[in-house]
């Protein structure tokens, strides 16, 4: 009886897998199609239909894109901006997260509500005044315009707060008795314990900034400051119907995030769901 049950359990999960397989194909096929399109020529990219394996594969599209567009520069811009924002969040978010988790100070609740409400302020509401400010400060087409506003992201602070709240108070008390300063407690006691949460923060911040589109689109007008996403968008404006080359741009833009995702999917998934499953 027990054995029969287990067998049917096994059979059921095979049937389920079989039913779900088409959905998996629907999800993955477009990405494979995108990559395969980069090896086709301008005509066959349209006429070859479902084909994942090009009839006459060539690297011509890559050669054209890389020789006519400063894609390496776009890549570098995306990398500089993403890494700088990640670095800032690695410092500032745990600081604020620690204060909200373990300190009790007048106004804490007020500040915390402010923090939560920032997460609900949509980006388009602030674009116009910031555009004006950036022009006045001559921040258009600069790295700081793409970096500084995001250095202490509320979502990262919230993530850190949730994690630090779970650390025992005793370690802080013990450090205080040993005469550690406030900053010493944070730097030497709390910060080294943040490993797993820090991984989630780093990867999710990186993905967010790497993938962002509206902000760099608006604040970079010169091509030497474009990020990959802006380069990708503008390539479409300039060669609208040349799909094999556009897919080269798309593939190059998606490659780093796909690699990061495949290696760190555990952290990404726990980061994206952590806001939701609390409470």
């Amino acid at each position, binding site marked *: 009886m027990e054995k029969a049950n287990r067998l049917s359990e096994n059979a059921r999960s095979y049937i389920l897998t079989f039913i779900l397989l088409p959905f998996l194909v629907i*999800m993955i096929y477009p990405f494979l*199609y995108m990559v395969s399109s980069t090896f086709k020529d301008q005509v066959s990219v349209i006429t070859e239909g479902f084909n994942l394996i090009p009839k006459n594969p060539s690297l011509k599209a890559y050669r054209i894109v890389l020789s006519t567009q400063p894609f390496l520069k776009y890549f570098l811009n995306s990398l500089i901006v993403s890494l700088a924002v990640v670095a800032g969040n690695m410092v500032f978010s745990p600081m604020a997260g620690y*204060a909200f988790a373990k300190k009790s100070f007048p106004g804490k609740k007020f500040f915390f509500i402010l923090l939560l409400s920032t997460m609900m302020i949509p980006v388009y509401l602030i674009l116009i005044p910031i555009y004006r400010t950036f022009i006045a400060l001559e921040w258009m087409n600069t790295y700081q315009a793409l970096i500084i506003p995001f250095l202490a992201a509320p979502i990262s602070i919230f993530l850190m707060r949730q994690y630090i709240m779970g650390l025992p108070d005793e370690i802080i008390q013990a450090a205080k008795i040993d005469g550690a300063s406030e900053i010493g407690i944070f730097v030497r006691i709390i910060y080294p314990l943040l490993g797993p949460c820090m991984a989630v923060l780093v990867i999710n911040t990186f993905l967010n900034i790497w993938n962002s589109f509206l902000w760099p689109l608006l604040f970079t007008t010169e091509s030497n400051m474009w990020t990959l996403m802006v380069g990708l968008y503008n390539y479409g404006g300039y060669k609208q119907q040349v799909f094999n080359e556009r897919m080269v741009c798309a593939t190059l833009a998606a490659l780093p995030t796909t690699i990061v995702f495949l290696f760190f999917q555990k952290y990404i998934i726990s980061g994206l769901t952590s806001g939701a499953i609390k409470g």
Partner: protein
Amino acid sequence: MEMKALGHSSTLKRPRRIDHNSLWYRIRTNKAAYLFIAPWFILFLAFTVYPVIFSGYLGFTSYNPLKPSTINDFVGLQNYRNLFTDRDFLISLRNTLVFTFGTIPFTTVFALLLALAVNRGVKCKTLFRVGFFLPTVTSLAVISTLFVLLCNQYGLISQIVQFFGGKPTNWLNNQHTALLSIMGMSVWAATGYYMLLYLSTLQSIPQELYEAATVDGANGFQKFFSVTLPHLRHITLYIFVLNTINSLQVFTEPQIMTGGGPGYATTTVVLYLYKRAFSSQMMGYASAVGYSLFILILIMALIQLKVLGFDRRIDE
């Protein structure tokens, strides 16, 4: 005179005592905490508080950056009144609402069904998770570009439609199909994320509840309706609210795939705002558009919280 002297002498005589409960004392002793939140707070003032207030002000002006003096041109509620008669705005509002309410039911139902199926124990769980989640980690700019290819006259979508006996068309260039195509893509791209939210909730339901239900003689359907479904109510509300907030702000997809066209067929409110502010330079008017959308989003979120009756549970 006497009173004054008395008062004076009494303050002198009283020993200086620190009141450990006074506000000032607690602020001073918590200097470190304020230092820790300072970087966030400064950025918050500069990049949230100031712009939110300033764009509220701009909404009452006819500000045009090409004529700097217009920043003082106070027009009262004129911008907001004009919205009601601005045909292009009303079309983009309609598109946004169609997009939001046309995608959310599909995204939510697909996400739930897929999560339930994956949770029942499929083989190669990791493969499914990676596959469904790949669109979430990929930039919308990339996905939109990819779908421009898939949606062209001879593209993959046309081929599939043709296979089932339909008529191929240039999906994004057609008044009747452009918005639908973008909606279809969004459902495809968003389902994975919400599936994962459902999946993590399903996995947190205590197994004992199912065992208890089995002991009580419940069949599969009864277990689903009396154990699984009640546990999914909280996350479903969260998904509704989150998805509504995100969908009402849709911008990247139409901007890349159609530029809002053909005509205004795929112009959304944020895209309309973007065009008005940065192409037509009508920044005062665009600010009013922004605030109107923000108010709409708040109202929608509040209605959802009220209707579904979870207003208190959300802050737990």
